[in-house]
């Protein structure tokens, strides 16, 4: 059975796509441009702009000289490839083998597909009309070879369906450009008066090879089908999803657990093969009465450990109300990341923060108590005690700042400094005694003051003079005086922490 190919040509791929995204641009004069060697080059021009003589490859400055009110929109490198890939994935509804044909086409392997649409004519019409309806101008061609389909899509008459085995006769009327040749070869052929493929297709092959190189022969053979051409089909990314339909509705917790366990096992097996781990997962239960129950989990590091993920879900299984029963379970992993393969150790040493056990423990804690309960502290470049640490939630985050050890810091720091009553000699001696929580402490030993300025570029405020004091019972405190002495203010002294 002969093979059939469809080539789809998008003459205005980029502008059609842009008009689809921004309908306001319809009938406007605009161009897409990319910087190249320090100037902006037009990569695509709208129909209205083309009508005024602006073409692809022109400098934007020249185009502006033609039309003063030209809109210039920034293009992105490789954007057409991305659009074609998306269109190719969409086209998989027509055939299992679809490929992007850069820079402005698609190639579909239509072998054995057309009869499902009731014939090649209807098949092509459906493709073209659907693409036209979503806003793309297209021309499509169908033939036994990719080369012939490509040529009739661009240079043939519409509808361009070449019957099986007829491509050699079509070749005769095609211009050299329809053979997908390099511009240089095309130019030379035309210069020699060979304006139709028919005038050189019959020439001895040795002559053609000597004059125009192997490429011309290869293209001719690809057109007629003497040489096989392969395309690289698009492989759509399969979503990480597992389904488990049940014959009988499930109503018990054990049943749900079994279903969850099975789904996790198959999903994790796939993740493990692809060296991926999931960061977020959804477990959906479709009930008989049409309701959907959903459980969500998140992990701190990519994981494909069945037991761990099961335990995370297990904490909230009780929240599922099966009512009349659950008939379908779906497990999805919307966020998936690469797993960093860890070097395995010979013994189970007490590892640091990289230990997977710790990451899994934290996932469990967070899934029960809510996000934000687990954190570590890293040093921050501030002297102000409350700001000298910054909480981080990730286990891997590192900082270049160092812990300051030059000055004594209390092991217990009150969240807010508490006001105390103090008797202290002026101007800057430590207190003689102070009253905290209705108890008078007599200061026996003291160190200080250590002045810490409030960082004025961040926040207004007075400086603090800190003292380390020890009372007669041996308890050590961190006290400070806020600002300078002023006559009328009370509570200028505070307690801020306890030393070990």
């Amino acid at each position, binding site marked *: 059975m002969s093979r059939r190919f469809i080539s789809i040509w998008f003459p205005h791929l980029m502008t059609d796509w842009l008009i689809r995204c921004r309908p306001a641009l319809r009938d406007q004069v605009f161009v897409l441009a990319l910087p190249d060697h320090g100037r902006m080059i037009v990569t695509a021009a709208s129909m209205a702009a083309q009508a005024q003589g602006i073409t692809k490859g022109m400098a934007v400055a020249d185009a502006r000289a033609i039309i003063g009110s030209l809109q210039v929109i920034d293009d992105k490198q490789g954007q057409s490839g991305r659009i074609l890939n998306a269109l190719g994935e969409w086209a998989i509804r027509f055939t299992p083998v679809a490929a992007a044909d850069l820079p402005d086409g698609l190639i579909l392997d239509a072998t054995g597909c057309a009869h499902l649409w009731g014939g090649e004519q209807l098949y092509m019409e459906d493709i073209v009309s659907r693409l036209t309806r979503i806003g793309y101008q297209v021309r499509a061609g169908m033939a036994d070879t990719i080369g012939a389909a490509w040529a009739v899509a661009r240079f043939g008459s519409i509808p361009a369906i070449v019957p099986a085995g007829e491509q050699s006769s079509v070749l005769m009327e095609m211009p050299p450009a329809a053979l997908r040749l390099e511009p240089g070869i095309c130019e030379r052929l035309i210069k020699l008066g060979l304006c139709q493929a028919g005038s050189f297709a019959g020439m001895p092959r040795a002559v053609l090879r000597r004059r125009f190189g192997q490429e011309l022969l290869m293209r001719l053979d690809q057109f007629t089908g003497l040489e096989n051409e392969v395309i690289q089909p698009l492989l759509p990314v399969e979503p990480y999803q597992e389904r488990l339909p049940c014959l009988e509705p499930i109503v018990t917790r054990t049943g749900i657990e079994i279903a969850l366990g099975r789904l996790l096992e198959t999903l994790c097996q796939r993740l493990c093969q692809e060296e991926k781990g999931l960061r977020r997962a959804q477990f959906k239960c479709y009930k008989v009465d049409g309701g959907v129950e959903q459980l969500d989990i998140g992990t701190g590091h990519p994981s494909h450990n069945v037991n761990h993920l099961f335990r995370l879900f297990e904490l909230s299984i009780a929240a599922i109300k099966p009512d009349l029963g659950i008939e379908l379970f779906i497990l999805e992993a919307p966020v998936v990341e690469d797993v960093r393969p860890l070097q395995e150790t010979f013994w189970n040493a007490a590892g640091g923060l990289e230990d997977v056990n710790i990451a899994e423990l934290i996932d469990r804690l967070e899934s029960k108590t809510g996000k934000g309960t687990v954190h570590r502290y890293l040093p921050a470049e501030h002297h102000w005690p409350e700001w000298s640490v910054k909480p981080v939630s990730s286990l891997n985050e590192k900082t270049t700042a160092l812990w300051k050890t030059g000055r004594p810091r209390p092991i217990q720091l009150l969240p807010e400094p508490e006001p105390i009553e103090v008797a202290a000699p002026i101007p800057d001696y430590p207190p003689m005694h102070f009253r905290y929580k209705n108890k008078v402490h007599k200061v026996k030993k*003291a160190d200080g003051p250590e002045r810490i300025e409030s960082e004025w570029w961040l926040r207004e405020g007075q400086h603090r003079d800190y003292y380390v004091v020890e009372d007669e019972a*041996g308890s050590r405190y961190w006290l400070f005086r806020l600002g300078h002495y002023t006559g009328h203010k009370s509570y200028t002294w505070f307690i801020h922490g306890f030393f*070990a």
Partner: protein
Amino acid sequence: MPAERAAIIAGLQKDILLLQGFKQANSTSVDMGLGRITAAFPNETFPTGVIHEFVNTEAEHVAATAGFISGLLNTLMKSGGACIWISTCRTLFPPALKAFGIAPERIIFVDLEREKDILWAMEEALKCEGLAAVIGEVKEISFTASRRLQLAVEQSRVTGFILRRKAAALNTTTCVARWRITPLASEPEGGMPGVGFPRWNVELLKIRNGKPGEWQIEWFSGRFRFADEQLPIVQPVLIRKIG
């Protein structure tokens, strides 16, 4: 004969300890640097892989206890391990831990809202083998709850520390040791002015298969030191006051 009998009794005692889960002192056991306090422990080793309980009521005592625990963590975390600190009303200030030789970034803090969650979180953490220690600040702990924690550590051999704040009614727990740490007035070196090294009165109120006792120790340049240890004699330098 009595010498033989004593040897037999000592051997039997060791067997009993082994059955109770206290390992023999060997090369892998850690030396906490606790000096002669070690004699109070079974097998003369600081019991790791068990739960220690610290009782205290006042904020100053909590600070002293945190200091003592930091001293112990210094040794436990030396091999690069991480530890978890679980609390509902934590006031621990991480930069101060650096003075006890601990990397504060290797401590994971779990700040919970409900007292009930702490015991659950502690049990989960104690089951995790990768941790060097688990510290939990609780108001009180029932015998049943302590037994659950004990079962968790027996599997994982992680050392747990429980700080009990409401120590008015001390009930029985399964913890291997019960400590009370209170601050003592420091003595600056060589009559210098100011505040000296942190010094505590360490009371070992209860120790399973050991001898309870009371000691005065201080944290001196990265290790524990007994208060009555011979201080290096520093000749007081006469400073003539100028001006």
